[in-house]
């Protein structure tokens, strides 16, 4: 009789990291479908090259370092997918591929791989592309336009010409913008799934929602031309950030209070950047900045253990 002897517990939850990652892909599927509806094959190809860039570079990295493949945890797929969803549809495919590579190598692997990185890899990739190809990253097209009629995003229209996009269009997604950011409805569906199934914790999303809600409300009361609460929540990368970026376990705090505070600060920062920075959008920078504070937030929010 050969018996396995190991430390308790002898039963473990069925899910694993790969399952969680796959569930994130499931939760992103409404946004993917919406992007294909609005931007057709451009969306399909851009998503594919971003994932390909991420997956191939991760495999190559582990191969060169003589480590076992880590593709089975599906985190590279999620990173590539998230990157694609925050890129403009018209982006040349090779740029998307490069973004995927940078996300994985600079965003994750040089820190030591999954779990070790400080910054959200997909956003590192986007920030890199933003710095390297600023024009490409700010050229937008109208949805449904097969000949790619260029059109500014609702946030740019607001910021630079004081023009407001109808909320209905914002909500459904018939607007120009990054691949997966246009349809609020699709993001809420997927995000709701993610939170209700407890795949992601609700605290950071709630924090970010409240932060953005509060500050955009204050600014709106001061001057309606600052944009309404709904406008800010449904435009740009806000909802993608709320549901899919501040819920990234690796780069956000682990304590319960820390997660909430992280989200709250991101939400506040987004509105501040949207109002005071030179750019119309601020979700990416807000999250990257706060990523840097995650270790500190963790340290300051260590819970008191039971009975202390």
């Amino acid at each position, binding site marked *: 009789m050969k018996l396995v002897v190991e430390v*308790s517990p002898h039963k473990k939850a069925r899910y694993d990291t790969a399952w969680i990652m796959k569930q994130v892909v499931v939760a992103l599927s409404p946004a993917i479908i919406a992007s294909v509806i609005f931007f057709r094959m451009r969306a399909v190809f851009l998503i594919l090259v971003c994932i390909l860039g991420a997956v191939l570079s991760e495999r190559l990295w582990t191969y060169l370092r003589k480590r076992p493949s880590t593709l089975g945890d599906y985190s590279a797929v999620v990173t590539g997918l998230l990157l694609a969803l925050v890129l403009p549809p018209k982006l040349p495919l090779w740029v998307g591929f490069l973004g995927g590579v940078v996300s994985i190598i600079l965003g994750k692997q040089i820190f030591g791989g999954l779990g070790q990185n400080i910054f959200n890899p997909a956003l590192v990739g986007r920030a890199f592309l933003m710095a390297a190809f600023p024009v490409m990253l700010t050229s937008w097209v109208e949805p449904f336009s097969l000949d790619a009629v260029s059109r500014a995003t609702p946030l740019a229209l607001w910021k630079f010409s004081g023009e407001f996009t109808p909320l209905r269009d914002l909500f459904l997604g018939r607007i120009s913008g990054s691949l997966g950011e246009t349809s609020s409805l699709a993001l809420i569906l997927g995000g709701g799934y993610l939170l209700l199934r407890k795949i992601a914790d609700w605290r950071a999303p709630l924090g970010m929602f409240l932060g953005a809600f509060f500050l955009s409300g204050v600014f709106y009361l001061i001057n309606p031309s600052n944009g309404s609460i709904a406008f800010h929540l449904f435009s740009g990368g806000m909802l993608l950030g709320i549901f899919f970026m501040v819920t990234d376990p690796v780069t956000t705090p682990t304590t319960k209070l820390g997660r909430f505070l992280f989200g709250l600060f991101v939400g506040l920062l987004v509105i501040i950047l949207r109002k005071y920075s030179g750019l119309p959008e601020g979700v990416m920078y807000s999250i990257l900045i706060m990523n840097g504070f995650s270790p500190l937030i963790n340290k300051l929010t260590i819970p008191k253990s039971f009975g202390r």
Partner: protein
Amino acid sequence: MLRVEEAKKPQESFYTQKFSPQKVVIPLSQHTGALPIPIVKKKDRVKVGEVLAQPQALISSTIHSSIAGEVIGIKEGPHPLLKRCKSFIIEAGKESPDRFEDFGSIPEEGIKELGSSEILSLIKEAGIVGLGGAGFPTHIKLTPPKKVDTLIVNGCECEPYLTCDFRLMIEHTEAILKGIEIVARILEVRKVYIAIEENKLEAVKRFNSKLHTKKYLLPQTEVKVLESLYPQGAEKQLIYSLTKRKVPSGKLPFDVGCVVQNVGTCFAIYEAVYFRKPLIERIVTFAGSSLVEPKNLLVRIGTTLKELFEKEVLKFKREPKKIIFGGPMMGVALDSLDYPIIKTTSGVLFLSEEDLDLREESSCIKCGRCLDNCPMRLLPLEFVRLVKKELWQKLEEFCISDCIECGSCSFVCPAKIPIVNYIKAGKEKLRTSKSKA
């Protein structure tokens, strides 16, 4: 707290059966505290319930023979928790081990006239220890240095698979209540809670209908139905659930005016006081996918697993790949069938291939599930990080000593990190470095 697959069917509906072994291995250590001193020698003949070892230290317990026979050896033997321990090996020989001595019961009225100190010495002489798993000598627990006002009778049985406490509550409701009567009287508490999880409503019903007769001399007694969550039955969590009192770190239940006793212990107290019967047997759940049929057996202390299979009381249908003493969340995996049942054994599980979880440890993704589910509100992922970095002293800053090793963190970890393993290693390192200093 978390929901864990209960796996209590079908054994929860199986009546307990008796089993008496031909040979027993009775370790000296079956409790928290000092080892008792042997008072019999090799080749001595012993009766059922005869004292084999007497306590000398304050926190210790008496060990009795669970069968009639000959002491064929007093030597190192297998021990389910310590691996090895000095043990009495007793063989029944030709005598029927079933022959039960009459330990001399006393009439019901006589019980009422017994003073606390007499009852306590009966409990002490019967070798009763906490049967929920900790094995703390009961007579010590019943003489707290501070006045307590609440007695909590723990019938939660929150570990999956185990049904021994449930069967006891169903089959011996009245005896348990009589045991509770005794405990409540000694402690002079004002309030008694009988805590049972909602997956054992049959037990709740039985207690309530017995209590309804009002024939028990009990203070205000309430059967509390708790959600079936793990670890609902952990002492500090249970006290908090029922009384909203928090046992401070490093303190004991009596510090917040509570004493917690397992239902099995209450039953043993009843038998000791009413029948002068020492703790020589207990109900143990045998379950798991390797067995033809799971069972709840009333077995003598010291019965080895081997004999249960040799006598075909238990039968394998599939080769076991893991044998666990205790429940799946906190139990200890063992390497053979040589181990004996001891006083704190509530169950033995035999798991086959299909139940093994061979997924390997992967990178921590810092999802925080471990800390979200920690009943002590600790940061398990920090323990893992610090142990890996060998930052032993920092472990104390994160209150590693508060960890009750319930296994919730390892259970929920998506990266399958054996967190409890790291925590045990960290605690061990701290212990050895302290003893060196």
